[in-house]
């Protein structure tokens, strides 16, 4: 109650809301965190690469040119293979560029689905409590009892590897964790006076859940979503690496590493380039999450 003046006494400048401004405002805020900016830059880089893949990629990702060409080779037809070629003679650079499309499509979609399910159940469990909470928690316990990758392996074996199934598996495996987080945040928020105020003015359940509770949980959720995106990207990569991912010839960073592992002693570029690509993208999301958390703690 009695708090003396400190750094926190500075009121934030008045900001008016419009979607665009919020977006730019968010990026503006991010400027205060170097790590956050670096992360944002990495993500932006890959998003642009994915968007303009056909314009950037020197050759088609499936064209076979010169097997095992080391980086910098100029082919007979005159193309420069900046990062070398793989065992089928496909340009590694072009494949990595197209591979970003795969990962930047499946990872956000899968994360979004997991969040959709996780938020609904988390809000219900946290707000209603009682048997709903018990039931949902028991189910979550069972799913979370599986080591994550074992769960993926079992699911993919049962339903077979495909793009849709990857999304399903990620949703199924991540939703319980998200539910737990949302539930925890809801438990904290549901005893606030403004929730009581909404209740005493006869607000409906969906209104309380989605208009009163969810917006106030968004800060930690955005940070978690960034971390989770990174994790989903890793998961998609790992599934590709283990041969449970997208069927070939889709350019996929994980399977690119897997295919070239045997040739690592004489053609290391084939594995190293996609390994660095996926690491940098994950790093981008992790740094962004850190930056966002840092900023949210400051205010």
């Amino acid at each position, binding site marked *: *109650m*009695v*708090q*003396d*003046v*400190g*750094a926190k*006494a*500075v*009121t*934030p400048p*008045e900001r*008016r809301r419009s979607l665009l401004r919020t977006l730019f405002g968010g990026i503006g805020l991010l400027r*205060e965190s170097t790590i956050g900016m670096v992360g944002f830059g990495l993500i932006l880089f890959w998003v642009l690469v994915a968007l303009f893949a056909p314009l950037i990629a020197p050759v088609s990702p499936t064209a076979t040119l010169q097997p095992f060409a080391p980086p910098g080779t100029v082919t007979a037809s005159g193309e420069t293979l900046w990062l070398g070629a793989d065992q089928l003679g496909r340009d590694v650079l072009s494949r990595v560029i197209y591979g970003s499309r795969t990962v930047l499509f499946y990872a956000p979609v899968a994360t979004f689905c997991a969040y959709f399910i996780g938020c609904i159940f988390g809000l219900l469990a946290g707000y209603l409590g009682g048997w709903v909470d018990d039931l949902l928690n028991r189910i979550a316990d069972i799913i979370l009892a599986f080591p994550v990758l074992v769960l993926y392996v079992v699911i993919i074996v049962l339903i077979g590897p495909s793009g849709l199934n990857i999304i399903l598996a990620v949703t199924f495996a991540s939703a319980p964790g998200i539910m737990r987080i949302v539930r925890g945040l809801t438990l904290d928020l549901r005893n*606030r*006076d*403004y929730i*009581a*105020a*909404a*209740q*005493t*003015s*006869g*607000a409906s359940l969906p209104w309380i859940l989605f*208009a*009163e509770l969810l*917006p*106030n949980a*968004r800060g930690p959720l955005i940070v978690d979503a960034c971390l989770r995106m990174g994790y989903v990207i890793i998961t998609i990569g790992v599934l590709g690496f283990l041969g449970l991912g997208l069927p070939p010839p889709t350019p996929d960073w994980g399977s690119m590493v897997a295919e070239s592992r045997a040739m690592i002693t004489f053609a290391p570029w084939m594995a190293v380039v996609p390994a660095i690509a996926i690491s940098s993208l994950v790093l981008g999301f992790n740094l962004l999450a850190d930056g966002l958390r840092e900023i949210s703690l400051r205010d």
Partner: protein
Amino acid sequence: MRSRSDLFPDWSPDQPVLECEGVCVSYFTRAGEIPAVLDFDLKVMQGEAVGLVGESGCGKSTVAMAIMRYLGRNGGIPRGRVLYKGRDMAELTPEELRQLRGSEIAMIYQEPMASLNPSLTLGRQLMEVPLNHEKSVTEKEAYERSVQMLADVKLPDPERVMSAYPHQISGGQQQRVVIAMALLSQPSLLLLDEPTTALDVTVEAGIVDLIGEIAARFNTSMIYISHNLGLILETCDRISVMYSGVVVEEGSVEQVFDRMRHPYTRGLFDCIPLPGADKQARPLIPIGGQLPLPHQRPRGCYFGPRCDFFQAGRCDVPPIPMEPVTDQPGHRSRCIRWDEIDWDAPRQAAAVAETLDEGDVILRIDGLRKYYEVRDNSLAALVSGKRVRHVKANERISFDAREGQTVAIVGESGCGKSTFAKILMGLETASDGGVAFQGEDFADKPVQKRSADEVASMQMVFQNPFDTLNPSHTIGSQLGRVVRKFGDYKDRREVRQRVLELLDLVKLPREFARRRPRQLSGGQKQRVGIARAFAGNPKMVVADEPVSALDVSVAAAVTRLLTDIQRNHRTTLLFISHDLSLVRYLADRVVVMYLGHIVEQGTTDEVFSPPYHPYTEALLSAVPIADTSVEKKRIILEGQLPSVLDPPKGCPFHTRCHRKIGQVCETEVPPVIEDAAGHLIACHIPLGELREIAPVIAEKQVAAE
């Protein structure tokens, strides 16, 4: 390790223990330097108690931290000196500073629970003090001294406390442990930072008593930081009043309380409700405006924009120095006009709200009970088979409220007043008994089952201003939602119009509709909360401690606003509070609760004068009063508040009652005796005896001058 006198070779007891000279404290943030305290002077002699008083954000706690040289990574003292026993604290080596802390200067904190390490036993935390400050002390000696000190601070069963963890004892006991910890090395200077703010008022009384005793016994100097002027009066010899980082007035307690020479000090006294006074005789006068933020202080006098005596061209020209008040030695004021203002002129008393004639009964509570089930999973419970226990949150509550009336429910934490509010609002249902509101039974009707009209006719103002509004929505949209819900306004323009009217009603600028809660101050948020409650023209408003988290000057204004609106709308107000002084100001009827029971109810005058229920009497005596002209009985309640899980049999108050008459109190539930029509007391003591008890608060016999 050197003995203490080595550290201070030149000091003798007739010199000040602590001297602050022009101390400035700043925090260095990304936005630049933010001065928190400016030009702070203070002199504390041995055995003297100095009070530091002010509203939140005035820099009083920062002063304590600056004296301790504990300002965190981004704090610093750019100008000024702090001399402790003649030595400049800035020149101490880190090792000397460490020796000083905890042995020479000790501190007592606002939140005892958070100030104790949760995973170490209290004994270990106490023993650390002698073990670290005196080389020759053995574990055994340290243990014995700690036990002795716990006994000195009047903790029952010190041995048990030594082996306990902080969460195993109550808040009042925790604070006693913190005090014991501070005293273990017999410090010369004790800093007390709001030591009783987090405690209930009857517990507070015990702690204040203890602090007074200690100061006398050890001849310790004290700096007592508080926002509560009444507490300062009870504990201190001298006082400094702070406002926005500067001391605006300092002097002896009598000088500042009775012959204040700064407009802010006077404003502060005018907004404090005094339980001895009547609202007609001494209305509350809020201070207009708001405390300036540290980086937005006005030029010249910081109080200028809120001051009635502001003169452009003089008050807004720096510097505004401290000036001695000529006829009073030791009294200084930071007001350049202190000599020109007529301090005895009567304040323009704002119109006193006339008492409304009583309307019909609108709410009738009849034998209401609320029990919660608690499952006990301990081994003992399993064996004895008492798995399910009941928390008796409300027990046989009966009273009426009439139209336009203000009924106050008073009690300390755990008395069941908030549970009662929840039942009224339909967030909980009653276990037994009736709640008749406008003839409708509300006892078993949760809010989901109430019609829109019923919901609109009973609304609530919440306690915590930082929690009452949803931070994600604008003020306008939050009010608009309630307006749409309760009114026939379907058209968007009509809704908007009504929202603006509501803002007018609570005296907030109309452009606030577009703001978000975080852009509002605590008082402003609370006003929006009031606007929301009155959006549907309710018949009754339940206000749960609506101003307890606000500073006095803001609280006075919000209280005034609330009661004005209520009178104008002839709304019934159920005012839940722990603050007896405030209740005396605004209530028509008072209901006193203890452990879920009503112990006394009646009109305000009846409850505030004998015959009292012994608990009411103790409660009244515990309230610190910032008035040098009254005298009150001191009644310190023994023991702790019993747990609601295991309430005492018979009279709920018998475990702490100072007037317990014997066995009957422990075994039988006391009868409800009627003193006058509607004045009910639940006590075994015969009415005749209760009537003979002297009033708790009385005018002092000897006139001051």
